[in-house]
């Protein structure tokens, strides 16, 4: 038996071109109703273009967008079941907080009493009940973004689009607002689609994350999988602090492969990927999964789960310390540990061994 509820958003083979520039290329994604979905990626990757195309601010060059099962390609933004929170500057400066929040309801022609009731409730939801008569310039950045949120949720639309809503806020406020957004979404229960280039922000709020770069949807999955088990080398390089190693397959029989990286033979799970002997591949290991040991002359790495290198330096980052090591071929690797002491560090240039558990290293063929 199939689920009768259509997905909130269905993007089919979507492409967007600006002349010769391809902003989006054959993007396919489905977002369920009530999901908190994050579009994550580097600046200029196409995530905002995708969001704005869903919202009706851009027309697709090719492909189709379905909202709640209905094709909306021909509809302008005001006719779609979406509303949007912008990065900044999107409050109406000549209106008070109440007028800003009630604007959409006024456009919809609701009676004044109903508007007042709904506006009060929306402002209560975002904790701004005491600022109703202020103008936007009399509010802090965080308060302004909350007014935008109230203005969006008051409309009772099915889908809320958030275009880097926290980018203009300072670090602490961004963290606080992240949780508030997540809780708000759980409270109102509608679909949130949130664009950000900040992976911590994405991890905090997302049910699922889609990674977008260079116009392509690189990978899509839940936050934990994207972080712990990236399918693509790009995901590994963008999310978390991963060591990316280049190597050549020397043996590709069975469920694992042997890869030669800087003269060391490393054993990696094949993950069902099609690899052949001699093929150039990439390996990724998160820096916090790498352990650094001093090398005592005889215990050379030959177990397939470690590699030798020369210690460069340690960087104290507060909670963690990153140990930087370079491999014989010049590749830099990082081992990140929760440690506050630096009194037992190897000397610069000393030989060290970097090791990891078999499940921590991942093979990427493309």
């Amino acid at each position, binding site marked *: 038996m199939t689920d009768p509820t259509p997905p909130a958003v269905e993007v089919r083979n979507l492409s967007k071109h600006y002349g010769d520039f391809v902003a989006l290329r054959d993007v396919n994604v489905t977002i369920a109703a009530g999901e908190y979905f994050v579009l994550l990626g580097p600046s200029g990757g196409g995530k905002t273009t995708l969001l704005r195309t869903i919202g*009706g601010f851009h027309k697709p060059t090719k492909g189709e967008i379905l909202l709640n099962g209905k094709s909306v390609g021909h509809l302008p933004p005001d006719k779609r079941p979406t509303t949007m929170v912008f990065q900044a500057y999107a*409050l109406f400066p*000549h209106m008070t907080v109440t007028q800003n929040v009630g604007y959409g309801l006024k456009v919809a022609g609701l009676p004044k009493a109903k508007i007042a009731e709904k506006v009060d409730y929306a402002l209560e939801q975002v904790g701004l009940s005491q600022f109703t008569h202020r103008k936007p310039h009399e509010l802090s950045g965080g*308060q302004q973004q909350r007014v935008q949120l109230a*203005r969006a949720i008051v409309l009772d639309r099915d889908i809320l*689009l958030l275009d880097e809503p926290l980018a203009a806020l300072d670090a602490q406020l961004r963290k606080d607002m992240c949780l508030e957004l997540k809780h708000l979404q759980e409270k109102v229960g509608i679909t949130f689609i949130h664009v950000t280039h900040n992976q911590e922000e994405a991890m905090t709020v997302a049910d699922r994350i889609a990674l977008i770069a260079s116009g392509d949807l690189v990978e899509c999955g839940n936050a934990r999988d994207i972080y712990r088990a990236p399918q693509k080398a790009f995901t590994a390089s963008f999310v978390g602090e991963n060591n990316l190693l280049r190597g050549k397959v020397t043996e590709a029989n069975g469920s694992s492969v042997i890869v030669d990286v800087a003269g060391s033979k490393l054993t990696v799970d094949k993950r069902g990927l099609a690899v052949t002997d001699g093929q150039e591949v990439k390996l990724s290991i998160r820096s916090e999964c790498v352990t650094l040991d001093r090398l005592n002359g005889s215990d050379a790495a030959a177990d397939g789960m470690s590699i030798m290198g020369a210690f460069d330096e340690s960087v104290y980052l507060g909670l963690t310390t990153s140990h930087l090591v370079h491999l014989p071929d010049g590749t830099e690797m990082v081992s990140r540990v929760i440690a506050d002491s630096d009194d037992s560090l190897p000397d610069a240039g000393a030989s060290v061994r970097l090791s990891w558990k078999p499940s921590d290293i991942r093979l990427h063929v493309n």
Partner: protein
Amino acid sequence: MNDYDNIWLHKLKWSYLLLVVLTLMTPVIYVMYISFNANGFGANEYAFTMEWYGLIFSDALLIGALRWTLMLALVVTVIAVPMALLAAKYYKAADNKLFPVFLLLAPLFVPPDILGSALLVFFKNLNFAFIWLGDQVGISLFDSWFRLSFLTATIGLIIYTIPYSFVVILITMGRYRPEQTEAARACGANGWRAFWDIEFPQIQAGVFSACAFTIILVFNEYTRTSLLKGGFDTFTTVLISQMLNTGMSGQSYAMSALVSFIAIAIIGSIIILTMLRTESLSRIARAKADPVTS
């Protein structure tokens, strides 16, 4: 002035500013001064009077010219300012801004007598073409469409004033953030509603300034108007005609001074009101800016 500025240099800057303002305003002030002299322009003796102001309304030529000028100013403003507003909106949205701005500002760089003469020749030829067309069809309906008239003067003045209106509106539009229009659309407003509710209140100062500027330009304009106006006179054409032929009458000075008084009063009021409003808004903002939690 900051603590390190030279006090004499500071005073010199203010003196220079005052000199510039005096240079600009002296001719106007002089016309006002003469308008109150019972003995008129060039007389040895100055005798204060309000008589010329009383006589303005009995001068049929001046009143007729003023009426035509006001009508011309009104029609040109009603047509030129919305056109300039649309052009400014298009310009802001355009990817390639160089070409449209060149096209829109080009009339500013054509000398007025050349543009006026070109339009005169154009309208004359157009008139001949329409008469010929009417003759071919056997009707006289088209005969007077492009004869020199209020219509041709209006077209000439629209061409003249649009670039100025465009620039004035564009300056205020520069501060407007297009995200606000998108936010209004996301709230359910259609394009017109988003413009009227959100954008217009924020650019209205520019639009009204463009209206005031257009009216002043139409009042000032002589060359194009005199070439294209046909059978009626405007305020400026009457004044210049008087100056060239018989010399300006006392009531002409009074009328010129009155128009200047009104223009200065309107512009001055706008500036004072804007300053008072800004001060009042910042006072409210300061009062509300008590520590708030984010």
